[in-house]
C-alpha cells in the first residue's frame, strides 16, 4: 500500500545519502523505492540465530 510515510522515508534516505534527482525522475525513483520495500520483505523472514553472514572465498569457507 502506498502511503505518506513511505514517501517521507524515501526523501529522508536520499537526504542522508546526499544524492538527488531531476524532478521528472522523482516518481520513477519513488516507485523503485516501493518495489525495493516489497522485495526485502523476504529478509524479515526468520532465520536460525546461528546463521552467519556469508564470507569469501566461496561464502563460508566451503573450500
Amino acid at each position, binding site marked *: 500500500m502506498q502511503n505518506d510515510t513511505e514517501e517521507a522515508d*524515501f526523501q529522508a*534516505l*536520499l537526504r*542522508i*545519502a*546526499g*544524492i538527488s*534527482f531531476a524532478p521528472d*525522475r522523482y516518481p*520513477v*525513483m519513488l*516507485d*523503485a*523505492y516501493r*518495489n*525495493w*520495500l516489497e*522485495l*526485502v*520483505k*523476504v*529478509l*524479515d523472514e526468520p*532465520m536460525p540465530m546461528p*546463521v*552467519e*553472514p*556469508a*564470507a*569469501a*572465498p*566461496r*561464502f*563460508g569457507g*566451503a*573450500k
Partner: protein
Amino acid sequence: MAVPTHVPSLAEASAALATGATTPTALTEQALARIAALEPTLTAFITLAADRARAAAAQAEAELKAGQKRGPLHGIPYALKDIYDAKGLPTTAHSRVLGIDNIATEDATTTRLLEEAGMVLLGKLATHEFARGGPTDKLAWPAAKNAWKPTHFAGGSSSGSGTAVASGMVAMAMGSDTGGSIRLPAVFQGIVGLKPTYGRVSRHGVVPLSFGMDHTGPLTRTVEDCAMAMQVLSVHDPLDPGSAQVPTGDYLSALKDGVKGLTIGHAKGFDEAAAMTPDQAAAMAEAIRVLRDLGATVKEVTLPAMKRFEAATWTIIHAESFAIHQEHLRKTPELYGRVTAERIALGAFVTGPHYVQAQRLRTLLTAEVDEVFKGCDAILCAPASGAAPALVDVDEGPWRKQQPLTAPFNLTGHPAICIPAGFSGGLPLSIQLVGRAFEEALLLRISHAFEQATEWHTRRPPESWA
C-alpha cells in the same frame, strides 16, 4: 569491399600456428581488418590498440620462430572488457567518471596471465557503464550493438565482449559477471560465456561493481576455446582477497568424455517462474532430449524460490555498488549516465540490517543449492526468458521488472555457463548449465558434448547490415 572472414577459434588458430599454416601477424592483421570493416556498425571497441597489437604479434612471431613457445595461446589475439587494467592503456569503464585519461599503470592479474601466455591484446571493449548501466544511456562512447541484429540488445554488461566474439573480430574476450554480465551477452549473441566459481579467476585490477558478487571470465565461440582460456586464467591470486586456494583445474583432458552416466537436474520450476517464450521453452525441451540421447539422465530438481535469491542478490549489489560510487554520485553526478546513476542510487535504500540479513540468507541459499547437487552433477535452466529484445523495448528503469535469471548463481558462487541452443526470429537462444563449486571441468565437458551434438554454434551472424 568484402568483409574479411571471421577470425579462427582459439583451437583452430593454435593448430594453424603449430603447423606454420599461419602466423601471429597474419592472425592480428585479419582481426584488425575485420574490426575495421565491422566497427562502424557494431561499435564494440572503446580503445583499439592496433600498434601495440602489431608489436606484440611480431614479438610472438619471433619467439615462436626461435622455438620459445609459451603455450597453445601464444600469438593469438584477444580483447578485454574496458574494466580490466592493461598497463599503458586507459581503463574507462565506459564512463566519463574515469575517462580516457585513466591510464593503467599495471596489468590486472588476468591480463598478466594472458600476456604471459603470449596472447596479443587488440584493445578494450565497450561495456554498460561501470557494468551497471544500460545500452541506451548517453555516454562518451556508443554502446556495442548485437552482431545478429544491431537494432537489438547486445546483452550486458559485457556487451562489447559479446559483440566482438560473436561478430568474429576476436576469438576470445574477457568479461565480468555480477548478475549475468558474461552470460547474457553470450546468450543474446549465440556464443559461450562462462562465469567461473567465485574465487576461481582473479578480480584484481578489474574495476569493481560489487565485491562479493563480481566474477571474471571468458567469452568464446566454442566450449573448447573456453576451456583453453580457463586453463590459463584459473590461478590462485594472493592480490585478490576473494581468490580461493584451490589447485588449477584440468579443463581439457576430459573435455571430450561425454555425458553418459551423468545426471542433469532440470530446474523446471525456475524456468516456469521465468515466463519463457514458446521458442525458449521449445529450445529447453530440445536440449533435454539431446542430453538424454547422449546418455545423460535428466531429472527434475527444485531450487529455492527466486524471490529469496533476488532479495539477497540485489541487497548486496545495491549496497556494495553504492558504497563504491557514493562520493562520485554526490560530487559529480552529471558524469554518469542516467540509467547507471539511478540503478546505483538504489543502494541508498539499503540499511545495515538489510545487508547483514542478505549475507545470512546467502549462506542458507548457497547451502540449499549445494544440497541439490547431492542428487545431480549439473543443473539445467533457462538463462533468459527468450531472445534479445529490441533496443526500444529494453527496460532502462532503475527497477527492472524482471531480474536476470542468471543472478542466483552470482549469489551462491556456483560456476554457470551459457551455450547456444536454438534460434528465434533470427536471434540466438541459449541454455544455462550450473555446476558444483570449482567443477568447471565437468561443466565444460557437458557443454562440449551438447555443443558437438547440435549445430547452433556453427551459425554466423548474417552481416547483411555490414
